[in-house]
């Protein structure tokens, strides 16, 4: 895709496949799911805005950023639950070796997105199928469906938004398990 810069490609390849872990971690720290998603997005912005070429373990960097952002939040909020403090222990994140399983596999990704495609509103799905699976241009689609190009754009945008949201919702079962491990290991460290 012509509109992506090198940093965007790096972000897609090195960071996004771990999105389920980030999401699970942020949700564990922040009770509110929408706020947790915003926090992850903020962390994404930070990682894209930094000197990304020098990052050796980007997924751990993102986890640290999420944690730091959460700490800022907690300071402002002044009320933090014990569970959240447990989860915040820096060792928890720092000591965790990256888990190769905690990446979403592209192959499953495709399967997942195609399944989601089937659940889109009919017009929206039709336009996306014509554009992406059948390779018709937006102009051709407009003619075939008797729509304006700008309406075709709107259907495409809506479909892309819904599919991207659905992809973000996808979870690795391990992600949740691992975030529990973080909490467990934090407790152990605290006692010894």
């Amino acid at each position, binding site marked *: *895709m012509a*509109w*992506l810069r090198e*940093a*965007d*490609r790096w*972000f*897609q390849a090195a960071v*996004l496949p771990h999105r389920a872990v980030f999401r699970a971690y942020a949700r564990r720290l922040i009770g509110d799911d*929408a706020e947790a*998603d*915003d*926090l992850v*997005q*903020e962390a*994404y*912005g*930070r*990682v*894209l*805005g930094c000197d990304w070429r020098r990052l050796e373990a980007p997924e751990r960097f993102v986890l640290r950023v999420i944690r730091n*952002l959460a700490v800022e*939040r907690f300071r402002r909020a002044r009320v933090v639950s014990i569970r959240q403090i447990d989860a915040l222990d820096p060792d928890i994140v720092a000591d965790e070796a990256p888990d190769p399983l905690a990446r979403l596999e*592209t*192959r499953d*990704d*495709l*399967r997942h*997105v*195609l399944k989601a*495609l*089937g659940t889109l509103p*009919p017009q929206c*799905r*039709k336009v*996306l*199928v014509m*554009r*992406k*699976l*059948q*390779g018709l*241009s*937006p*102009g051709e689609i407009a003619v075939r469906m008797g729509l304006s*190009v*700008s309406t*075709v*754009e*709107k259907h*495409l*945008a*809506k479909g*892309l*938004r819904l*599919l*991207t*949201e659905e*992809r*973000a919702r996808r979870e690795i079962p391990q992600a949740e398990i691992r975030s529990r491990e973080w909490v467990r290991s934090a407790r152990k460290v605290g006692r010894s």
Partner: protein
Amino acid sequence: MGSKREEGRTELIAQAAEWLARLDSGSADPDAFEDWRAGDPRRAAAFAEVAGTWDLLDGARAAGATAPRPRRELDRRMLIAGGASLAAGAAAAVYLGPSLLRPRLRTEVGERRALTLPDGSAIELNTDSKLSWRFTSDARRVWLERGEAAFTVTPDAARPFLLIAAATVARLAAGSFNARLREERLDLLVLAGQAAVTTAADVVREVRVDGPADARRIVAAGPAGVVDQPVSEGDAQAVQAWRRGEIVFDGQPLSAAIEEYNRYLASKLVVRDPALAATRLGGRFMTNDVDGFLNALHASFGVEVVESDGERILTPGG
């Protein structure tokens, strides 16, 4: 989060999707896009994420260069024939047509029905098929109007059994046959017994399969003429597989396999990718279990399925 009011993630993803759709159709101003993206790294991240979805969908249309090598056998399910229940509904399906006073038997897509005719001959009708008959003192006439039927014909020296289809009359002696109407052609598989096939152009072909050791024969008859050839036991079994609710593939291209499967499906399978369509496959499946077939295609060839407008589009996967 900063102190100023910022767009949340949901909003950012929506904006990024709009930009991408407008860039794709060429209606977006590239400079305006760059300004938007440079305004906040979270926007850049949202755009990269949406672009990932966009690219992922291209993967679904990926060229057949990555299509895995076909395997002979996908699946060896041994299945139990459920013939007993078939006859039950047949009586209800027989009715007298309003204009043609001939008894008829008809099946819906995915349905199979069995019937015993007044002379004791047995008929089994495959999916989406129609036949009618009239028995008189000089002949037993059966019209295959659509689809496919299996016949077990009882002997009756006084009244020949005439199968009429595709401008062809097949005179069937006692025995067992499978007839399938394809467009303007009748494919008649002679499993046991004799058939004399006469076309509208008065071409006559006689075929005999007397004993179990004799090769089964298949006769293709229509306006273009008649061709008759022996078939292997395996192929004869494959033709008959529908009577056990099965569908058997043995090296057919996926396009042909899907055409066969679609006979049994209300929601049709579609394959548009030429390389995928040419993929050859083998295996034994249930006509009423398309999910089993699709799962096997996914497991063996990575084929993905998109449902759209009552169709199921098969794509090569990633």
